């Protein structure tokens, strides 16, 4: 089965939008950078500033944006590794921002994370078997004696040799390690999976293997997946819906075909026009938009629309009004004042 086949099968089966298993609303997180003599924060980095998202079982939400857009922080807030300053994360009807201590520990079984860097995501002093079966042990599903057997079964699920159970992470390649991490994340049968750039640390040849594995596992298990990536192509192939982030905000979201096929926000167009095209004729025909400069610092945000400093179609009003996400068609939403006012220079 090729990548495209898997996607086609996965997408065909689920046209109706079911109830979300994960929903987050009003997420805000800033990190203090500098304090004055009295310990008051004088400078903050606004990583995430008012983000809502919802994912249904068996569906994948792609979160795309450049470095510093806050997409990783969103993932870490949803995974409850970072406490948000404001907002709620609801998984399977339970508000994760409210629970703490033992209850939080138990709630974590519903929500697992796959990390960006498989090289540091495995404890070097523990065997692969321990890494994979540990979630079952800490949630009291198995005893210490059953760990090896449970680990072997989990390794087979991610197409790894079960004989790896007594090996140490230093013996494994990056792709093998990431599979181990996936097996570890799936061990307790989570309903939500957060994958933060799961392939960006891997060789090109291993990337598609890992992505196909994720797709197949989602098909079997029906998890809701939040896929965080800077790579538009990956999102296009794997996600049902996409949210484009810029400086801590979602600037455009909707079904992946609509957003990619008919991008409305100037930033989304910039992002898409930067994707290399395999067909030279199509590449020659399409508009290429290059924006000036670096994104503004998330410490000192521009007034009004955050993208206006680099936006090719900005007008004076953009400096005054901070646009909200508004529906374009059905589920496709965009946050731009100039929405509907022609093409980009």
């Amino acid at each position: 089965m090729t990548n495209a086949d898997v996607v086609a099968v996965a997408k065909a089966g689920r046209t109706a939008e079911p109830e979300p298993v994960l929903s987050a609303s009003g997420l805000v997180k800033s990190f203090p950078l500098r304090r004055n003599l009295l310990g008051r924060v004088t400078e903050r980095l606004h990583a995430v500033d008012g983000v809502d998202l919802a994912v249904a079982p068996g569906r994948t939400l792609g979160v795309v944006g450049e470095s510093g857009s806050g997409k990783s922080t969103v993932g870490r807030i949803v995974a409850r590794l970072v406490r948000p300053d404001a907002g709620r994360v609801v998984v399977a009807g339970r508000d994760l921002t409210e629970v703490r201590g033992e209850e939080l520990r138990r709630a974590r079984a519903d929500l697992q994370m796959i990390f960006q860097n498989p090289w540091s995501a495995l404890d070097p002093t523990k065997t692969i078997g321990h890494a994979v079966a540990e979630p079952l042990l800490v949630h009291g599903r198995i005893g210490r004696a059953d760990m090896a057997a449970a680990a072997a079964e989990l390794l087979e699920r991610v197409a790894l040799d079960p004989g790896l159970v007594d090996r140490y992470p230093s013996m494994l390649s990056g792709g093998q390690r990431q599979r181990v991490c996936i097996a570890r994340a799936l061990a307790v049968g989570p309903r939500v999976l957060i994958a933060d750039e799961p392939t960006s640390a891997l060789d090109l040849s291993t990337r598609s293997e890992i992505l196909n594995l994720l797709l197949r596992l989602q098909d079997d298990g029906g998890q809701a997946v939040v896929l965080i990536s800077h790579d538009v192509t990956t999102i296009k192939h794997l996600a049902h819906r996409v949210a484009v982030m810029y400086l801590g905000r979602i600037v455009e979201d909707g079904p992946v075909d609509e957003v990619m096929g008919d991008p409305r926000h100037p930033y989304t167009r910039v992002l898409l026009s930067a994707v290399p095209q395999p067909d030279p004729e199509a590449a020659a025909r399409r508009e290429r938009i290059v924006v000036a400069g670096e994104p503004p610092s998330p410490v000192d945000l521009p007034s009004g629309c955050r993208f206006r400093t680099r936006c090719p179609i900005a007008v004076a009003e953009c400096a005054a009004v901070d646009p909200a996400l508004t529906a374009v068609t059905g589920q496709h939403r965009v946050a731009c004042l100039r929405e509907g006012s022609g093409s980009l220079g």
Partner: protein
Amino acid sequence: MTTLSPAPVPVDRPVAASALPNRSPMRTAARAFFRSPAALSALAFLALLLFLAVAAPLVVPYDPAAQNLANRFSGPSAEHWLGTDEFGRDVLSRMMTAAQIALVAPLIAVGTAAVIGVPTALLAGLRRGAIDAVAGRLADAVMSLPALALAMAIIAILGPGLVNSMIAVGIAFAPSLFRVVRGAALATSRETFMESAESIGCTTRRMVWVHLLPNVAAPMLVQVTILMGVALLAEAGLSFIGLGVQPPDSSWGSMLADAYQNQFRDPFGAVAPGAALALTVLCFNVLGDTLRDVIAAGRRA
């Protein structure tokens, strides 16, 4: 999630990897350690010391406390290999008995330092924040005092004696162990696998003992070994001034003190305890250095 579909992705069998020996990082370091001649000699000397300490009551040629005032300061002879002291007691027998103290005293001191320093350091490195700030400032404050002077002040409260003096030394040593372990714990706590441990639902206790401690064990072991040598010197120093081992028991330090009292009548007296002390401290230092080297080599590989 319960039924498994047949895997379309081929099973990844690490052919090349299986040909290599599979070892934990700890065992790799241990192998390199046992290939070092210096470390092996140091270990052999300490093993001999351990044997003497355990077997002393059985192998001593004379009762170490038996006095023979007719035969004082005899000097080395066939009957008394290392001579006799001011009461005519056999120096070799006393040296062998004192080997017990040479091993037990550093263990008490470093054990105390570890009990105080290690758990605080692990928690401070993992959680940072207030625990780290308070423990760190406390460690700075204790370290700003000379260790021996502090130990003497604590002995003034606890009273003299081997156990009390070594607990005092342990309290004075705790900050240096705290600093090393806290630094390593801080670095480890930033690794993704610690975040992963949290995200799968590990308790704080499990994160500390199962994931953090084994990853800081290497630098901790180095520091513990080196502190053993320093603790032995501290014991000798405190016993020399009469705050450690109390008569009629003897340690190498108190034997040095006796030899010092009688240095003009028996200049040879200080050689045996002095040499034993120097050699033992040297062995601890060699062990610590070798450990540090093999661990650093393991990190590079």
